[in-house]
């Protein structure tokens, strides 16, 4: 495989696309979806209901059909990207913001960090989705609690990942050499350790976004988090769940497809970043 960044600038992009077709398609899909949900004019008002046109099958008038209240499913699926993706990004940023420093702190060799990891193990023994659900619903259904819940699920993953990676990096020669040359702890941490874990942190971040999208969809499927008039994918799957057994698949179907494609896109992106990271260090 040719190294992409050794190629002249103009060809770099084309090579990247060729090397990671899945990730490229995924990123384009997300970009398009975001763009459409933020700026494009929707064919119908996503919150407008119309009793006379309820449960219409997909067709020329309503591309993705209409739901039980007569709202246009296509407009709702696109509009839902706004709240679903921004909550997912917010949750991921919080996870990253807490997980990165905590991960660095937990990567020391002291007894304290060992106990922290033990405590995390015990914490992860809990059913995390139930915990997230309890948190959001006990708080009276606040949206910021959805973000907190995502962080609660994902921060321990960052900590464990960074700890295992940094502990093995610490054994390597160049860290030893840096310490022998008198580099301070903070210099070793920020100049030598951190740049070497960026790759896996980025992979984890992409996976966290994917996980967050599923968590948000699960919560709103249960009627917690994003609530009624605001369109959300989980909420649409909830609306359409009863219709599945009577044949109107499109209400839940297209919303579920949107979740699936977004998760697939971020998983592919994670794979591609992981690939590149692995090759850089080989």
């Amino acid at each position, binding site marked *: 495989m040719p190294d992409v960044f050794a190629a002249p600038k103009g060809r770099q992009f084309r090579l990247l696309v060729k090397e990671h077709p899945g990730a490229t398609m995924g990123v384009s899909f997300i970009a398009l979806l975001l763009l459409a949900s933020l700026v494009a004019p929707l064919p119908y008002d996503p919150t407008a209901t119309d009793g006379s046109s309820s449960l219409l099958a997909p067709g020329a008038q309503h591309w993705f059909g209409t739901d039980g209240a007569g709202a246009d499913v296509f407009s709702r699926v696109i509009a839902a990207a706004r709240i679903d993706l921004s909550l997912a990004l917010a949750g991921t940023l919080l996870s990253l913001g807490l997980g990165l420093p905590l991960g660095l702190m937990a990567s020391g060799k002291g007894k304290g960090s060992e106990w922290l990891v033990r405590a995390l193990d015990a914490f992860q*023994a*809990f059913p995390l989705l*139930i915990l997230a659900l309890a948190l959001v619903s*006990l*708080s009276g259904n606040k949206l910021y609690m959805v973000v907190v819940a995502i962080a609660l699920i994902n921060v321990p993953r960052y900590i464990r990942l960074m700890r295992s990676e940094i502990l093995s990096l610490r054994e390597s020669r160049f860290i030893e050499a840096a310490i022998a040359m008198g580099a301070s702890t903070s210099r070793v941490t920020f100049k030598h350790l951190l740049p070497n874990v960026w790759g896996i942190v980025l992979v984890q971040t992409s996976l966290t976004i*994917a996980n967050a999208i599923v968590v948000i*969809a699960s919560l709103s499927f249960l009627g917690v988090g994003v609530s009624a008039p605001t369109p959300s994918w989980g909420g649409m799957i909830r609306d359409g769940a009863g219709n599945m057994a009577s*044949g109107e698949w499109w209400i*839940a*179907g297209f919303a579920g497809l949107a979740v699936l494609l977004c998760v697939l896109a971020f998983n592919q992106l994670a794979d591609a970043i992981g690939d590149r990271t692995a090759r850089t260090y080989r």
Partner: protein
Amino acid sequence: MTLAPVEGAKIRGPKRASGPWRLVLGRLGFLVAALFGVMTLSFLLVSVTPGDPARLIAGPLADETQVTAIEAELGLDRPLGERYLDYMGGLVQGDLGDSYYSKQPVIDEIASKLPATLTLVLLSVALAAVLGVVVGAVGAYFRTRWPDSVGRLFTGIFQAVPDFFLGLMLIYVFFFVLGIAPAPAGQLAFSETAPARVTGFIPIDSLVAGDTSLFVSSLKHLVLPVLTLGLVYAAYFAKTARTTVGRALNSQQVHFARAMGLPERTVLRYAFVESRTTIVTYAGVIFAALLGGEAIVERVFAWDGIGTWALTGILRLDLPVVQGMVLVAGALTLITYTLLDIVVGLLDPRIKHA
């Protein structure tokens, strides 16, 4: 010159229990400590999280005196420390409190709903393990060739699909379009009554009662939920199996076995023996993740297990139910991990435990 033992010195034997016993005892000791932690956490998580259950139960129209009365009735007006001691004292005697709504002891409700969940989870893990390991191993064996590509495509898709959505799609295809699956109405059809309770596992109880048609019906109702969870988690299994078996196929002993001209079947068996601890570990982890993690799928199929029960409890702020679920799922997970450590330790003596 030979080294003779020093006169009068005794060869020191191990002081503590050694071998498998040491492993088992050490793990059990840790389990007891961790269970105590889980008990405390399940109390704290629910008691310290903001929210006002009394007001929620009373409804929006209730006035202050009614809310205070409900608070007193549920014991929510007492100080935190007192409630904690009470809670722990109750737990030791097997008392998890009563549900705010049904007024039934939580422990009884859990006991009546756990078998349905365990049936679902155990069968799903079994399906996921078999399917996932086969797909993963085939992928590893034919790495980068077409069976691998096909396997990875499906793995990628099933990893990305939310399990509850997959469940709904399966209901649409197998119940509505093809009409071969029963309606998603729980463990049995609406018209059927559950057999007399012996073990709590409906398929077994219906056999005990000698009702074959009921047994068949209970199996039919299991197919879609098990398929839903099995397919989603098979994808995770396949990913792990592909990596693990791939590494084993590249290991020195496998190369050596090939070089010695052993038949391919034997070589493959060696590779499987090498990867079995990872796969057993993964099965345990997934089993633990599914307890509580399958709650939404239970709800989709109207499955009357602890998942549905816990979701209902959480959504109406039934604190003892939430505590009970967190406690039971946490404890079962810890017990699973403990058993896993012991099994893996016995399977692979190279692994040293503290």
